[in-house]
């Protein structure tokens, strides 16, 4: 399949989902392509309102791709179900076409590190630049330039939240010469207050502190999820119906095993505040003394989406 065909397939899926009342939006790599920060990806990462997980599963179940029907991808995928989407889990699906190619769809309900409801800021088929940029603060160095590039775009369009996503010193100083960041954002991101003194070394150190903190926060989050997954993976692998041809059967197996051994609220039970403190302690081991004032205020990112 060509990239154009893949893109059309995912767009059509989103369109049909929305016709059924499912709030959803494409994010991550494909959104970056749309927004002009291109990366090569064939996977579609898709945000879905957890309350409509059943409806989306119904849609996927009846959707074929050139005659290929969908399956869960691998034994690690939690079931596509409100409880696990709300808990921050991701369900993975694949359509394996006859030419050996395939379409990969990853569905989740809570974007990592999101500070605002993604459902309220959607642009066409895609989640907003702000949502995508927040997601790019991972423990992988390769993701951060995309956050910076999206932040710059936001500022060009007049969206001041873009200041939260720029992690390049030279760019920050250049932007500051055109228009300084508002005071309100400096509370959320203390590093921005350093721009008034324009000391590049101090700003570089502060940005390194920020990035190390976000790296560690992502690492802690992944550690918690991996540990929670272990018994579930074993249980799904042991059940021969986990690989049944029918997605309905695969889903029943995964739902049954998840109810038994996969805590949907592994992250909230561990404690978001505890994760942030742990990340801070780990980050400080790698940073020079005195850099902790520049660590971000993460209280806005500690929302528990399972509380309604």
């Amino acid at each position, binding site marked *: 399949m*060509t*990239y*154009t065909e893949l*893109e059309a397939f995912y767009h059509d899926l989103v369109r049909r989902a929305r016709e059924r009342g499912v*709030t959803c939006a494409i994010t*991550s790599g494909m959104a970056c*392509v*749309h927004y*002009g920060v*291109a990366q*090569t*990806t*064939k*996977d579609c*990462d898709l945000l879905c309102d957890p309350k409509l997980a059943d409806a989306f599963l119904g849609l996927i179940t009846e959707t074929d791709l050139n005659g290929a029907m969908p399956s869960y991808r*691998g034994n*690690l*995928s939690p079931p596509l179900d409100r409880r696990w989407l709300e808990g*921050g*889990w*991701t369900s*993975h699906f694949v359509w394996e076409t006859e030419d050996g190619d395939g379409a*990969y769809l*990853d569905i*989740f309900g809570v*974007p*990592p590190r999101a500070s605002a409801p993604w*459902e*309220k*800021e*959607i*642009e*066409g088929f895609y989640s907003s630049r*702000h949502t995508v940029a927040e997601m790019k603060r*991972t*423990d*992988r160095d390769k*993701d951060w*330039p995309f956050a*910076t*590039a999206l932040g*710059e*775009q936001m*500022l*060009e*369009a*007049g*969206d001041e939240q873009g200041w939260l996503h720029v992690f*390049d010193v*030279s*760019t920050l100083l*250049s*932007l500051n010469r*055109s*228009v300084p960041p508002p005071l309100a954002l400096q509370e959320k991101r203390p590093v921005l207050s350093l721009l008034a003194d324009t000391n590049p070394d101090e700003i570089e150190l502060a940005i390194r502190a920020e990035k190390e903190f976000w790296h560690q926060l*992502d690492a802690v989050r*992944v550690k918690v999820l*991996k540990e929670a*997954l272990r018994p*579930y993976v074993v249980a799904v692998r042991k059940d021969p119906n986990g690989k049944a041809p029918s997605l309905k059967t695969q889903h029943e197996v995964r739902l049954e095993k998840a109810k038994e051994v996969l805590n949907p609220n592994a992250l909230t039970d561990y404690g978001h505040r505890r994760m942030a403190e742990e990340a801070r302690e780990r980050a400080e081991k790698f940073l020079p003394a005195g850099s902790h004032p520049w660590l971000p205020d993460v209280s806005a990112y500690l929302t528990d989406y399972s509380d309604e």
Partner: protein
Amino acid sequence: MNDAAEKPKPNWWSPEIAEEIRQIRYEYHVREFGEEMARINFLPLEERRREVAKIYDHAKARGVKFDKPAPGYTR
């Protein structure tokens, strides 16, 4: 759903400031992604999608695998 693109602009915004920021943006893209990707990233949407599709299709035809793991969570 609210379209994020419809947000009102702040008082400091003007086409001239936007153009300054666009230039800063372009310089960053060249520095970080290279001249060719910077060129592609600054194309109008439809042209950009065609260029990205060409890159992807070419890589795939040469045997590049774009598969990524399915770990049960999103990074």
